[in-house]
């Protein structure tokens, strides 16, 4: 009898425990929904940090741009406008003089001064994630409360782009030092000058920001009163949540779900071109792919239409260049290798492989595997036997990083400043280092173009250098370019004002709900 009671009690205890845990976890289901427009969006993963120096990913930059401002603002077209800096100019070759806007206040009420700017940039330079972006700034001299001089090693346009990056967000010196003295981190209480004020963040789940009523720039002030961004890794679940009205926006949707979404009249799809390109890179530093004829031959075997169908569910676009169409520095004016198996076969014989050859394709995760499979089938038709080796990210970059691969398939994304986009992939000093110089192609011409582009101040001229690099790379067929992805944002029909920038990064300030 006693034992029976113990069993019952144990069971009851388990029930209580479960319910109480469920209950206490319900604590954050706060009644934050006060008056005003409240918008809930879903993203496929959570942000890393509210500390601009502890992350460098797209989800986090959306959150950072909501809470903080940068000195220079990159608009949706990635053109530079005044942010916290009212104006900037080079007073000499090594000095960038910046005047910050007057009367800007942090969310905690303290005014913005040049001390905060100096503190933020110096703190950023110590960051492994975003320190490189401002590494050309040697020192910072405060002239007065609103003016400061940045001493730079070279007066390239890259400095301006660096200051517009989300990682160059301006923090409050007093606040951050206070937090750090207490042993806390910025994530405990993020304070910026941005259009939104931080409200809450449940790690792994969601964060909420509310409108900053005193924002200094009315053009970029927040329209919604409160925005929540929720992490929902499963796209199917996002679609159901959209249809039920549990969420208003899906920031990043998979192409596989589009048919279903387009059939639903209550949902709108915003499509945009991305900076992404998927390509196979030949390892030009070793045989057999040091042979340009062979590389060109294989370039003619890329069936982009099939790849688009199989790999991208019919979305996206064919690409012949070295980076996605919306990337700064992209050009479509390159040597184009259209799918043509006869040409491929002829070139293959010319290259010295009349009976075909066999090689190994390293594929970065199973994400890219469908594209590899399509290519494999086409290669087989001309007697080329390609083995697909799907690798985990770490192993893949270990391989390309030591230039041990034969051919490697993955993707690359553009950055606001083209030097960050092109340099890692084409600088010959980086062959076998870091793993991004996938083609391991050594060209003095490209090296000198990269060098010139880095120090050129005129953006139009800089771009010309990058276009030339694309031309040389395609002429030599160092990549087999395949496709570029489209991005999809899904809105419920009462939502507007959601536009991604060319980087695919979303800003929260324009969102409205009717």
């Amino acid at each position, binding site marked *: 009898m006693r034992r029976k009671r113990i069993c019952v009690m144990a069971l009851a205890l388990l029930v209580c425990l479960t319910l109480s845990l469920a209950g206490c976890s319900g604590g954050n289901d706060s009644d934050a929904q006060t008056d005003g427009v409240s918008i809930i969006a879903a993203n496929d993963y959570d942000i890393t*940090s509210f500390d601009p120096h502890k992350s460098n990913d797209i989800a986090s930059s959306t959150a950072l741009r909501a809470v903080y401002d940068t000195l220079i603002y990159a608009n949706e077209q990635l053109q530079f406008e005044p942010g916290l800096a009212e104006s900037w100019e080079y007073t000499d070759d090594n000095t960038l003089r910046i005047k910050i806007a007057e009367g800007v206040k942090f969310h905690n009420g303290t005014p913005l001064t040049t001390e905060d700017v100096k503190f933020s940039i110096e703190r950023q330079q110590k960051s*492994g994630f975003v*320190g490189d972006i401002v590494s050309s700034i040697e020192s910072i001299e405060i002239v007065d409360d609103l003016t400061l001089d940045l001493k730079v090693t070279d007066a390239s346009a890259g400095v301006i782009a660096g200051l517009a990056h989300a990682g160059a967000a301006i923090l409050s010196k007093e606040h951050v030092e206070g937090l750090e003295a207490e042993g806390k981190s910025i994530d405990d209480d993020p304070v910026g000058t941005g259009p939104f004020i931080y409200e809450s963040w449940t790690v792994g789940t969601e964060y909420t920001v509310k409108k900053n009523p005193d924002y200094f720039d009315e053009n970029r002030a927040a329209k919604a009163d409160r925005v929540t961004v929720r992490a929902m890794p499963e796209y199917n679940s996002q679609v159901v949540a959209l249809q*039920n009205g549990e969420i208003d926006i899906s920031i990043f949707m998979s192409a596989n779900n589009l048919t279903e979404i387009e059939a639903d009249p209550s949902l709108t799809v915003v499509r945009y071109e991305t900076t992404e390109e998927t390509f196979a890179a030949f390892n030009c530093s070793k045989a057999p792919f040091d042979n340009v004829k062979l590389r060109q031959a294989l370039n003619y075997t890329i069936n982009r239409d099939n790849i688009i169908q199989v790999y991208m569910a019919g979305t996206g676009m064919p690409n012949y260049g070295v980076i996605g169409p919306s990337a700064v520095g992209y050009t479509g004016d390159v040597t184009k290798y259209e799918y043509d198996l006869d040409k491929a076969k002829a070139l293959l014989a010319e290259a010295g492989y009349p009976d075909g050859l066999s090689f190994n394709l390293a594929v970065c995760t199973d994400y890219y595997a469908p594209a590899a499979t399509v290519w494999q089938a086409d290669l087989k038709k001309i007697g080329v036997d390609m083995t697909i080796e799907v690798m985990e990210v770490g192993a893949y970059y270990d391989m390309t990083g030591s230039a041990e691969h034969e051919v490697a398939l993955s993707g690359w994304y553009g950055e606001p400043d083209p030097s960050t986009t092109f340099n890692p992939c084409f600088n010959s000093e980086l062959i076998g280092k870091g793993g991004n110089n996938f083609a391991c192609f050594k060209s003095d011409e490209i090296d000198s173009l990269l060098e010139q582009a880095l120090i050129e101040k005129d953006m139009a001229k800089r771009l010309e250098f990058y276009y030339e690099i694309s031309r040389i790379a395609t002429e030599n067929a160092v990549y087999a370019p395949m496709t570029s992805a489209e991005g999809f944002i899904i809105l419920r029909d009462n939502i507007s004002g959601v536009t991604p920038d060319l980087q695919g990064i979303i800003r929260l300030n324009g969102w409205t709900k009717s």
Partner: protein
Amino acid sequence: MYRYVLKRLVLLIPVLLGVSFVVYTILDFAPGDPARLVLGSKSSEAAREEFREEHGLNKPFVVRYVSYVGKVVQGDFGKSYRTGRDVSKELLNRLPATVVLAATGVLFAIILSIPLGIVSAIKQHSAVDNVGMFVALFGITMPEFWLGLMLILLFSSFLGILPSGGYGSFANLILPALTVGMPCMANLTRVTRSEMLGVMREDFVRMARAKGVAKRVVIMKHCLKNALIPVITVAGLLFGTLLGGTVIVENVFGWPGVGAFLVKSITMKDIPAVMGGVMLLALLFSLVNLAVDIIYAFIDPRIKAEYSNRRSA
């Protein structure tokens, strides 16, 4: 009894040490450079080198392992490479969600499976038995991501009575718990049924019936108690598995548990985070097993006697 528990707790130390060594070794020898994975593909070599220096990745394996264990002994699990926050904080943030989900799932499974298993056994080959076994087979074979999506379609899309995901309230818990609980329920039903069938054919059961004990009493007292030991063992194992193995369900329902965090940490080669997570799960798994062993003693006097004998021995 208490001495037995204490002994088991002490035995946890070598177990955890072993686990930590194996996992650390595998992580270390697996390909991938944490500096590159964490800082991103566009980070410079200088930044990566600094990262390696800062986290001691340039030191030899043995030095790193020993210093890691040394810190853990002092209660310091280090900081996650990826988020820069304390690993213990990251895990404790997510642990309640995981425990709630696993506990509710197993609870749901136990409550449904034991009666279902008993009835199936008593009415073997009847319609009830067939239906029960069909449900069990269904539950075991359905992949979780599919089951989860179907439940979402039914309860949130079609009926509109439960949220499709999220975390916070009891309503959010129901669908994920059903999804993880379903295979457990199926498993436990089958175990209960087969154990019951075995016990029901024993001589002492026939004896009890022969001397006139009511059928209900024989089943609940003589049969069920004897059949329960394997059921509890399996339930304990399932609970332990659920603590670490609900990644898919976490993703489908946006449930902020330990599983998805661990998987992400593994792909980023975030060594402190993976180590902390695996050690925590190993500890929980061992504790659950210990709890199961203790429950045995309450159900089976023979086992309790055995525990006590060990004390005198």
